[in-house]
């Protein structure tokens, strides 16, 4: 023990630094305490970030295809900005609202400067910011989990440049924002200074992640494991209870919000948190993920279409790390991320669960980290394992040759696939039909203010900017059947509508929506953009068949 008592009264005293008794559980060399002042780290991270931002940002508005969900979140963010409440229709506790409140904040300045820019394609730019920050956090987390510099960089590159990640992180999904919070929570949990308030902050960040997208709830045990590993025996009880308390208290703000609005429990004439949760828990399952006939199988294949390396390789690496954690230092250091991947995989394997297409977003950074960790582990095994001081030179040389060959082989497999995928992402234009439809509706319809259009949310904001009345003029097509506040204004059903914008989403879901279905049946296309199943038709309701207007 040192011989000083540094807590002293002088004019100003630097914070005391006495070595804490080390916990035996902590192993391996610690990364430098301050990444901020490590030049090689900054250079590597900066270079990767530039590449990632270019690949993710280039052509961001035109690829991939605009989705209805993106439009919904952005429209809800727009409603928040406009002070119209938490959603463009009645907020019904489908998700906690924090996600699009953040989108509203991120897009506040651009939309204030140019209100017309509040459309899905343009506002994808906010996701570029989110993706960039997340990528940096992956690097920081990798370093904090004792990965060597190159492996942390590899993790960041895997996360930022995998075609699957590029496609998904461009879209305005709540999951992308939630992942940022979760990564921040992991980074704080693995704080090298083991500061009480860093762990507290990890709890806050985790709560923000869960309130952004509720599915992040399942990742919390893995976060707790990380925090446990990175806290010190003497201060652990305060650090961990602090983190759990912070997370719980912030998490409770959601039911508290519902309570304050009198919408915690179901009742007549109002929505409720209870009903919202009931809906989410009872969503029809999409089948077992490995059953070729199921919806989940289709979702899995839509992911594997873009990239197999990250999902499958990452999953394999996670399982390998979990199995070898008794022997491998890296495996123990990466216990948190590999556990995260394992949990998310287990949840996806539920036979009766509902598997949304964006589900994998929550796993991507952790898949990248465990894959990089697996690579680091393999590299260590090849280059250092059983190596002695007086090893023959040709054996050492052989180790490096083998490592080089392995790296080249992996690169030869991955790079061409990813090059193709990313080239598509930066060159393809998948949204021309949407832009044309938006242009047509903005110019060809003479009286937008008194025109009622059924449309999916990807175009909803375009219509609002073009002068259609938000809500009852530009109608998000689901609401024509599901929202009493909208159906009340349509006493004659489809006859009270002027146009239907039949996008793939509208055509797909119309079968369960009588009013929308009828509107499509009693209308004829006046303009069609694109061709095949991806086409967008603008259909005018035929008064000849009995229109009321």
């Amino acid at each position, binding site marked *: 023990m040192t011989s000083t008592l540094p807590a002293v*009264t002088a004019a100003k005293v630097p914070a005391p630094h006495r070595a804490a008794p080390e916990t035996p559980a902590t192993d391996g060399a610690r990364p430098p305490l301050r990444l901020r002042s490590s030049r090689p780290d900054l250079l590597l991270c900066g270079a990767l970030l530039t590449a990632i931002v270019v690949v993710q940002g280039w052509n961001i508005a035109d690829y991939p295809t605009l989705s209805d969900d993106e439009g919904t979140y952005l429209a809800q963010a727009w409603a928040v900005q406009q002070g119209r409440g938490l959603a463009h229709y009645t907020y019904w506790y489908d998700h906690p609202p924090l996600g699009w409140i953040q989108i509203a904040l991120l897009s506040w300045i651009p939309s204030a400067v140019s209100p017309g820019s509040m459309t899905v394609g343009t506002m994808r730019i906010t996701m570029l910011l989110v993706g960039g920050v997340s990528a940096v956090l992956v690097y920081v987390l990798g370093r904090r989990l004792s990965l060597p510099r190159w492996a942390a960089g590899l993790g960041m590159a895997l996360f930022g440049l995998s075609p699957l990640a590029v496609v998904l992180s461009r879209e305005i999904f709540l999951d992308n924002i939630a992942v940022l919070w979760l990564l921040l929570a992991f980074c704080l949990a693995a704080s090298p200074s083991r500061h009480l308030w860093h762990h507290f902050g990890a709890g806050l960040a985790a709560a923000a992640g869960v309130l952004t997208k509720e599915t992040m709830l399942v990742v919390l045990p893995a976060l707790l494991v990380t925090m446990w590993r990175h806290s010190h025996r003497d201060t652990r009880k305060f650090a961990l209870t602090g983190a759990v308390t*912070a997370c719980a208290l912030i998490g409770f703000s959601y039911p508290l919000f519902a309570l304050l609005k009198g919408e915690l429990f179901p009742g007549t004439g109002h929505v409720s948190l209870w009903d919202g949760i009931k809906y989410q828990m009872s969503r029809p399952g999409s089948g077992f993920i490995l059953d070729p006939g199921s919806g989940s199988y289709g979702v899995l294949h839509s992911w594997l279409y873009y990239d197999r390396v990250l999902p499958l390789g990452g999953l394999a690496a996670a399982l390998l790390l979990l199995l070898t954690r008794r022997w491998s230092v890296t495996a123990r250091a990466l216990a948190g991320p590999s556990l995260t991947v394992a949990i998310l995989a287990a949840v996806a394997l539920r036979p009766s669960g509902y598997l949304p297409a964006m589900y994998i977003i929550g796993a991507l950074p952790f898949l990248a980290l465990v894959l990089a960790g697996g690579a680091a582990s393999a590299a260590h095994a090849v280059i250092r394992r059983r190596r002695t001081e007086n090893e023959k030179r040709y054996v050492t040389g052989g180790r490096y040759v083998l490592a080089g060959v392995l790296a080249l082989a992996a690169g030869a497999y991955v790079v061409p696939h990813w090059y193709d995928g990313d080239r598509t992402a930066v060159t393809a234009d998948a949204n021309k039909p949407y832009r044309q439809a938006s242009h047509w509706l903005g110019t060809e319809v003479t009286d937008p203010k008194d025109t009622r259009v059924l449309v999916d949310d990807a175009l909803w904001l375009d219509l609002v900017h073009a002068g259609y009345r938000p809500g009852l003029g530009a109608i998000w097509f689901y609401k024509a059947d599901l929202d009493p506040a909208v159906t009340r204004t349509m006493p004659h059903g489809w006859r009270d509508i002027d146009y239907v914008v039949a996008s793939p989403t509208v055509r797909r879901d119309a079968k369960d929506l009588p009013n929308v279905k009828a509107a499509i049946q009693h209308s004829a296309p006046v303009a069609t953009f694109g061709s095949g199943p991806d086409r967008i038709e603008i259909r005018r309701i035929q008064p000849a068949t009995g229109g009321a207007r």
Partner: protein
Amino acid sequence: MLTSVFIAAVSLALFWMAAFTLWWQMHAWRTPEVLASTRFGRPDGGEHLSFSLLLPARHEQAVLDHTIQRLLESTHTDFEIIVIVGHDDPETTAVAERAAARDQRVRVVVDTHEKKNKPKAMNTALPHCRGDVVGVFDAEDQVHPELLAHVDHAFRTTHADVVQGGVQLINFHSSWYSLRNCLEYFFWFRSRLHLHAQKGFIPLGGNTVFVRTDVLRDADGWDPNCLAEDCDLGVRLSSVGKKVVVAYDSDMVTREETPGSLMSLLKQRTRWNQGFLQVYRKKDWCRLPGFGQRLLARYTLMTPFLQAFSGVIIPLNAAVALFLDVPVGVAFLTFLPLVTAAVTFVFEVVGLYDFGKQYGLKVRMVHYVKLIVGGPFYQVLLAGAAIRAVWREQRGRNDWELTTHVGAHLTAAEPLREDVPA
């Protein structure tokens, strides 16, 4: 609208107050390194300082002899015990004289002031001190035999002017308020005091405090008119840049008992609050060099009153949010102070667990329940004491309440003098 703005402002102010208090309360557990730094360094065996230990005793014939015996068991080789007794207190004097006759390290000094209090007693003894360092203990203290060796080591290795050791109330099982009282001490000496030492502004405790004799004489000893002379001494010494070192080791703390009744706790707290108010008004803290230090001083000396205020207003504020029709956003703000209060509660529960662990005491479920349930009532007690203190100060009543009210019939179970942290 005006209501909303008002509620929001009050809520935010309360939130920041509670957050800062919490931040400081948790100082020692910030990082493992900070926690390690709060302990005494291990003594190297060398003993170079001599100690004069002051032991003011008043109507404490029942416990005094035991305390002296325990102090004499100290492993340090160079110290004297100066028992200070009143000229009107023959029973205690007799006990002290007997101890002095048995062991030449014990001396007796008689305080002949007409109106007696602790600072006057200690000032009376100060000229008689022969040691390099003056230490202060109370008549009912249980002092660890190795404490002096550790303090000696701390003085030499840090070149400190003042060393403050830990004081801990132990009898948490006696009553609901003693539980909270014990925990207050725990957080204060275990954690918060170290922050004060680091920031360069420290209200010292009333015992287990050691000051270099020359420094103490230069400062003219204790302020005889101050009700919190210990706090005052700390403020005066740190204001002139004297170096204070705080060390806490659970096996090296001086153990004490909480006041015997709720009323005596209230009186003790009133006196202490009033003392803080006096120290605040003396303005010695204005000489602190740093703006942040002065702010910390201002805040710390005002704490009892802020605490009282917030204890009353937090529930009121939450009730307003729930029952009055305010916007949801504003209602959310009103819950912020409640959130910090909840975090504080949780840390207190963990603190109680840690306290039990460190002192080898069995903390049962019922104690945790008492801790939580008793929290609001303790707040009421604190608020009452604060209001009482302001009232007494306003009326110019700054006598030592215990001596005047309880007088000669003070029982041994009710110690004359307790020192209370925030």
